[in-house]
């Protein structure tokens, strides 16, 4: 991200933010509610356009070639982004098909197993608890093995075991040379040895620590 600014009317939510996420790194952004973390992640996920600035994902200009950039991005945002009246399997298979993956049903089975969702595959999302919805959202975000995983406060609503599964995925992503960018307002993840940590304060990104 290069000099990314986002304004909503007169309010500047992001102010000339520069951020580089290295391959194979786990980067954490901490900050209070309303500090601009979610907006930053939404822009990185190409869900929102910046008012100014440039974004590139693995050398792909995300503003000009957003569909190509999205192929390299997996994202878990605040809301699960799932169709309530479809089953878990249908939601995952839909996304796998949209990603043009080969054997989408096999991919669905694989990620469901990874997130311990096998028993829930044929249940409608409407009947799932918040924690399981989050697991399905995580499964969707990794089904196409993206290079960059964006996690917006993923710990919200997750129980201990779900949190552990998610941390394993973060580790796995890092060990395979892929990257994770996580926004959180808790201290938990900042203590999980990120490769880089930043603090977001009133739309400005400040370097917090680096290991």
């Amino acid at each position, binding site marked *: 991200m290069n000099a990314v600014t986002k304004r909503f009317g007169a309010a500047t939510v992001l102010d000339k933010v520069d951020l580089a996420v290295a391959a194979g790194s786990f980067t954490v952004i901490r900050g209070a509610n309303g500090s601009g973390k979610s907006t930053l992640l939404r822009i990185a996920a190409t*869900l929102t356009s910046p008012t100014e600035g440039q974004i590139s994902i693995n050398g792909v200009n995300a503003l000009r070639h*957003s*569909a190509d950039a999205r192929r390299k991005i997996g994202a878990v945002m605040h*809301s699960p*982004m799932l169709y309530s009246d*479809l089953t878990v399997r249908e939601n995952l298979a839909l996304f796998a*098909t949209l*990603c043009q993956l080969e054997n989408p049903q096999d991919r669905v089975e694989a990620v469901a197993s990874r997130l311990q969702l096998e028993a829930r595959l044929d249940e409608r*999302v409407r009947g799932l608890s918040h924690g399981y*919805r989050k697991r399905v959202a995580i499964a969707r975000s990794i089904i196409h093995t993206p290079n960059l995983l964006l996690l917006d406060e993923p710990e919200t609503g997750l129980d201990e075991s779900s949190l552990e599964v998610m941390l394993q995925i973060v580790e796995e992503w890092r060990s395979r040379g892929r990257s994770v960018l996580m926004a959180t307002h808790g201290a938990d993840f900042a203590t999980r040895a990120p490769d880089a940590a930043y603090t977001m304060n009133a739309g400005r990104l400040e370097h917090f620590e680096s290991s």
Partner: protein
Amino acid sequence: MPADWNTSNPVDVRLTASLSIIWALTLKELRIESRNRDVAVAIVMFASLVIAIFAIAIEPNARTALETGPGVLWAAITFAGVVGMTRATSHELENDAVGALMLAPVSRDLVFIGKSLGSFVFLTIAMLIVFVVFAFMFNLSIFHAEILLVALLAAIGFASVGTLFSSLTFRVRAREVLLPMLFLPTVAPLLFAAIRVTSVSVAGETWSASLPWIQLAVVYDVVFVTASALLFGYVLDD
């Protein structure tokens, strides 16, 4: 067999991929609707109610049915279509489900086509049921080829313009008010064409009397389907 017989043409591969994406999106719309039946039911119930109220108020005879029937039919279908679109939008907003489509690495054009096709199917089925209700209430035979053709053209136009405007109002608080304010004036030419074709057809006039209005509906669809597809990507990305 030619040496390159099994070599996939890149254009064919892209076309096959695009069609599978469109089919997946259409299937998603149909699955959700088949489990809720609230969009088609909303359209059929609302339109039938409007037709029934007018039928009771007018007490149509052979003359008044011809004079007022086509207008009542298409006004009922158009307003019911808005109600159906509002319901369909609510499925996309629950859990911010539309975000999954926005995160998918596909062209917004394909998302537009898939969603429009789903709406087109509901509208067409609902229209056919409403036609039966109207024919019964107004005692008019409306299952003529030219009326069915203009109904098909109207469904295409309503579905594509409706998909665009529904997406435009995703993040607007007063979308129930804004959607009809945008949709109704935009589909007015299509509505006039459908009313005129229905009027001349039930009056027993020949195809040639309907032809200019059918041509208008075709031109409308070409212009507005293209414009809606082009604008959809900008609308979806806020």
